[in-house]
């Protein structure tokens, strides 16, 4: 047995030589951090070994529920996720349908190309655009004033009450065009004979979309929505670090930014790791749950 393995290894030595350095890489950068999560169960002191302790069991996990910001953080995370989903789940479907109903080839290509742009722009730039656009002398405030909708400039980014909707719209702006790609390829894959048959049965343009296109891309829709709902605790990260400011603090702090601020910046490594771990475990559980629900109700699932 051992001899056979060694022999196999010898035959494949060329490949193993290529693979072994990368195996070391994968263990270091992908598996060591997973192992590093054990600090969530101790009060880890930087510089010590991961096994040095002192071990505290689930204390760090329980403590998260007792911190004064807990309610705010959970509210912001879930509210911003839901608000983003309300725009960003149906948004690309509607846009993709609109694209596919355009008649000219050129205009189709041009509008699609333009709509992909924001996906390739960094959050730093997107927030810069927002700050420039929405400042008191910015274009948007001037437009509102000239339309007589307001008589003094509104501080869209300086007030907490606007923050959630600003984030949801920024997320939509950034990703909606790019997310049409997957729907457009699903629409293109719908059997064209179905459209012929539909037309013979007397379906008009809107009937074809409603009875043939939409059912045809149903699986794609459900799959993407399961993943979306499963990610409800991922309420964004960079955009909050960049767009949030002390005045909107109460509205922007989400689980991920809290882990960064409290865990990394203030050096509470064990506590931060515990919060992060709890979030990922809940996230996986949510995907499984939504997937099961969808299999029962809609008869479609990802696994």
């Amino acid at each position, binding site marked *: 047995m051992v001899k056979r393995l060694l022999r196999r290894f010898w035959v494949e030595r060329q490949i193993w030589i290529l693979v072994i350095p990368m195996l070391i890489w994968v263990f270091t950068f992908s598996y060591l951090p997973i192992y590093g999560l054990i600090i969530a169960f101790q009060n880890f002191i930087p510089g010590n070994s991961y096994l040095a302790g002192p071990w505290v069991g689930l204390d760090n996990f329980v403590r998260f529920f007792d911190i004064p910001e807990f309610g705010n953080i959970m509210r912001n995370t879930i509210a911003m996720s839901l608000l983003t989903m309300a725009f960003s789940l149906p948004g690309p479907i509607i846009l993709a349908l609109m694209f596919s109903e355009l008649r000219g080839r050129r205009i189709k290509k041009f509008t699609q190309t333009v709509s992909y742009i924001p996906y390739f722009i960094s959050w730093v730039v997107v927030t*810069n655009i927002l700050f420039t656009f929405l400042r008191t002398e910015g274009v948007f405030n001037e437009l509102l004033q000239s339309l007589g909708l307001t008589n003094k400039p509104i501080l869209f980014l300086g007030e907490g009450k606007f923050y959630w909707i600003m984030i949801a719209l920024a997320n939509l702006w950034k990703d909606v065009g790019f997310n049409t790609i997957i729907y457009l390829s699903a629409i293109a894959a719908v059997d064209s004979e179905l459209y012929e048959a539909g037309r013979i049965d007397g379906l008009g343009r809107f009937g074809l979309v409603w009875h043939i296109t939409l059912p045809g891309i149903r699986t794609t829709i459900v799959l993407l929505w399961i993943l979306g709902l499963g990610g409800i605790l991922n309420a964004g990260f960079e955009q909050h670090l960049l767009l949030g400011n002390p005045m909107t603090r109460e509205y922007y702090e989400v689980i991920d930014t809290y882990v960064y601020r409290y865990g990394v910046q203030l050096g509470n490594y064990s506590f931060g790791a515990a919060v992060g771990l709890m979030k990922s475990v809940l996230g996986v559980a949510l995907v499984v749950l939504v997937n099961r629900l969808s299999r029962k109700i809609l008869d479609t699932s990802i696994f």
Partner: protein
Amino acid sequence: MSTRPKATIPSLIFDIFNYTFMFGIVVLFLYPFVNLMAISLNEGNDAMRGGIYFWPRKFSLGAYELLAQNPKMAQGFMWSVLRVVVGTSTSLFVTGLLAFVITNQRFSGRKFLRTLFFVTMYFNGGLIPTYLLMLKLGLTDTFLVYIVPGLFNVYFMLLMSSYFQNIPDAIFDSARIDGASEFRIYLRIVMPIAVPVYAAVSIYSAVAHWNSWFDVVLYNPSGAFDTLQVLLRRILLEVEGIGLIRDQQLLYHKFSSLTPLTLNAATTMVVVLPVLLVYPFLQKYFIGGLTIGSVKG
């Protein structure tokens, strides 16, 4: 896709609505850049008053001149470019090599490696353990922290291996009979054949490197390896912007009217233009890459 339906009145109304909607979409996605461009080309104090929409009111290249003369910006630009070039090429080479290995039918460790890699798609240590690891490895405050952790990417590997699977094995076998080593096969056969998938992945990788901001903040607090994105952020926060302007004003009178607003707009244009200019030409590649992934999973 649907062929042309009969032109009924509701259908016509919809067409008009759709074209109007598309016009709105184009404005929504392009105008912010036009506006920033106009502000960046305007004289500083004048721009603060607002009211600039499509064209600069008082034309001035001052902001760009300052950026061109500033050594910090030049350095940031260099680190950004270096990061994109080195990061993308090494990541493509290594990830492609592993994709090749796990599609190699003759390799007995194939299944084991696949499992090992796929696990990392669903489980990772998260922010804090990763941060502690970088500290421990001494990667913080080095340029390498941009490159090494990104050498291998599971998603890219999936895209690449699904492409490689369609290359007929006979090609590899005949090369092996001719005595080519596996590494040589990868270099001389796989890479040239699979150019489209390399192109697709390189776009995503390059854009990610160019746009990256948080890892610079997290791992390079010293500022020695600041990229353009980080500098842009600082200028927005005005700390850097005001300092930069004051220093230059002491030296040159011509910068006397610069403000953080125009400087910020100009820096944004410098960061954005390379992406805007390059990406329309690469469109067929990045869409191709995405659809390979969605069909094959």
